[in-house]
């Protein structure tokens, strides 16, 4: 098909590669089935304008639209996966990696950008769920470590958007140890007095949930995201009873005191910026409402 690729206008090729949304001009909301005009959905940050359902969004697009326009510089892009165990199941890990790299255009499941949020320097990273389920292996751990190091050097906050099935099985114990590595990095960030905001998006489970994602000074979730340690199927098999409605969703976690707050993706930028200005002791950009002048009279 190479000859065909060559004659297709480049704009269409780019669209083909953007995997966070199915192809086509119109797509259906995965929650309410409403037919949505794709361009409008993208403008709306992949949140259904009809029902407010938060669809998954690619790591790079997420970060580019979270940070101030044209401010992102990538960190750790040169870090590439290895196959320390020469792991093979029905496919070789190496082949799974190549396929994921080709499908997503990413080298691994975490993208880190240093940029600005409403003019404030910030390091931000996001998991690419389309890359082997956003699983955390050695590259994710090392890139996260460098994100923290950069934040410490620049004395700026760190915001991480997680979307991950957990630790990457094909790197076995190496993957498990990334839980320690990312948590230790965050302990260093905390010791420096710098804030970490963890934004848990759909889905955040397993080893990622049980390490960096739950260690925010603020743990924020997007609405109705699946968040948990064990997956619902495993729990179902263990307890052998039906799980309650809404179990392991953001709202369930909020009720149980596990997360601080839920923020709609369309408000994420301004509300995190406002929060970070407070944590960093920066002046407010919000004009204080003055009491009406006649309130003082009489």
């Amino acid at each position, binding site marked *: 098909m190479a000859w065909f690729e060559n004659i297709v206008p480049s704009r269409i090729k780019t669209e083909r590669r953007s995997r966070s949304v199915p192809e086509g001009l119109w797509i259906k909301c995965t929650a309410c089935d409403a037919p949505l005009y794709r361009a409008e959905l993208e403008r709306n940050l992949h949140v259904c304008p009809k029902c407010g359902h938060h669809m998954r969004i690619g790591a790079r697009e997420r970060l580019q639209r979270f940070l101030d326009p044209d401010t992102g510089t990538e960190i750790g892009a040169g870090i590439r996966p290895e196959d*320390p165990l020469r792991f093979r199941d029905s496919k070789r890990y190496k082949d799974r990696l190549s396929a994921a790299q080709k499908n997503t255009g990413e080298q691994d499941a975490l993208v880190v950008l240093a940029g600005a949020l409403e003019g404030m320097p910030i390091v931000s990273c996001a998991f690419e769920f389309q890359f082997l389920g956003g699983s955390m292996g050695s590259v994710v751990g090392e890139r996260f470590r460098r994100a923290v190091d950069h934040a410490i050097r620049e004395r700026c906050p760190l915001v991480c958007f997680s979307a991950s099935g957990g*630790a990457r099985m094909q790197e076995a114990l190496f993957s498990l140890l990334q839980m320690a590595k990312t948590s230790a990095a*965050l302990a260093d960030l905390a010791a420096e007095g710098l804030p970490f905001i963890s934004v848990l998006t759909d889905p955040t489970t397993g080893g990622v949930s049980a390490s960096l994602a739950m260690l925010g000074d603020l743990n924020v979730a997007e609405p109705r995201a699946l968040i948990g340690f064990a997956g619902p199927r495993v729990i179902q098999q263990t307890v052998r009873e039906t799980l309650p409605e809404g179990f392991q969703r953001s709202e369930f976690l909020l009720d149980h005191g596990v997360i601080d707050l839920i923020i709609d993706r369309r408000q994420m930028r301004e509300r995190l910026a406002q929060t970070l200005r407070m944590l960093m002791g920066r002046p407010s950009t919000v004009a204080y409402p003055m009491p009406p002048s006649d309130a003082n009279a009489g």
Partner: protein
Amino acid sequence: MGINFLDFEQPIAELEAKIEELRHVTSSGGVDVDLQEEIGRLQAKSDRLTRSIFGKLSPWQITQLARHPQRPYTLDHLSRAFTEFEELHGDRMFADDRALVGGLARLGGRPVVVVGHQKGRDTKERVRRNYGMPKPEGYRKALRLMRLAERFGLPLITFIDTPGAYPGLESEERGQSEAIARNLFVMARLRVPIVSAVIGEGGSGGALAIGVCDRLLMLQYSTYSVISPEGCASILWKSADKKEAAAEAMGLTADRLQRLGLIDELILEPLGGAHRDVDTTSAALGAALERHVAALAAKPIDQLLAERQQRIAGFGAYTEVAG
């Protein structure tokens, strides 16, 4: 105590049964020199057979040994390798989780804090110990004891032996993820030496939650990985029957992990496994722990922490290209 033999040990089991039979005959009917010789001959044969079978165990067979119902657990080692043990209970918030035990103990005269997963020996005890699978309150009890160790400058010793953190409804309600993550966060900078030993199953985040350390030891027939072979098989092979292939692929045995440079010391077990001679196993484990704790305790604490941070930051296998 009779030994429970695993499926791959059946030839040994048959020989041992024969020896037992002869012993019975000898004891009931006076001393027969010929029988004594025969017993000796069979015993030697059984040892040779054991040596040969244990010389080429597969990762799956080692997994079975790590889960052996007679394998020594945390409290077995505590009662042998340590003098004095005062168990401390509860997370001061919700409950006392019996799947994870801990307290003050002495190792070679030195006061230390010990925490470890605890499995049960019989059915009733297994249920009480929840098969060694802690809930958030278990990890929070461990955290409390770690803080206690830090406050009084006592080295921390942890014993890892769990299939994993308990995957149940109430675990999620009480924040299993946060409980595990918090321990990783705190252990990374805990201002006392930490030595961890995998004594049986090192299952996933539930194991690591008490396993961030300065030195990691493993008993010869213990395992440590990101998921159980069954779990890995059912996800990657779509069939739990492929557990043997998964165990092979994951490299979860002590000798493989030693070759990968992920553990600091492999502690040999007696012929046939730790359960064949618990005293000897505990003694070897205790001696190794004592040696590592002494070496770490001699270091200035800031150097120890810097080395730990370097160690943790170095975890991983990746390459780096320019750009």
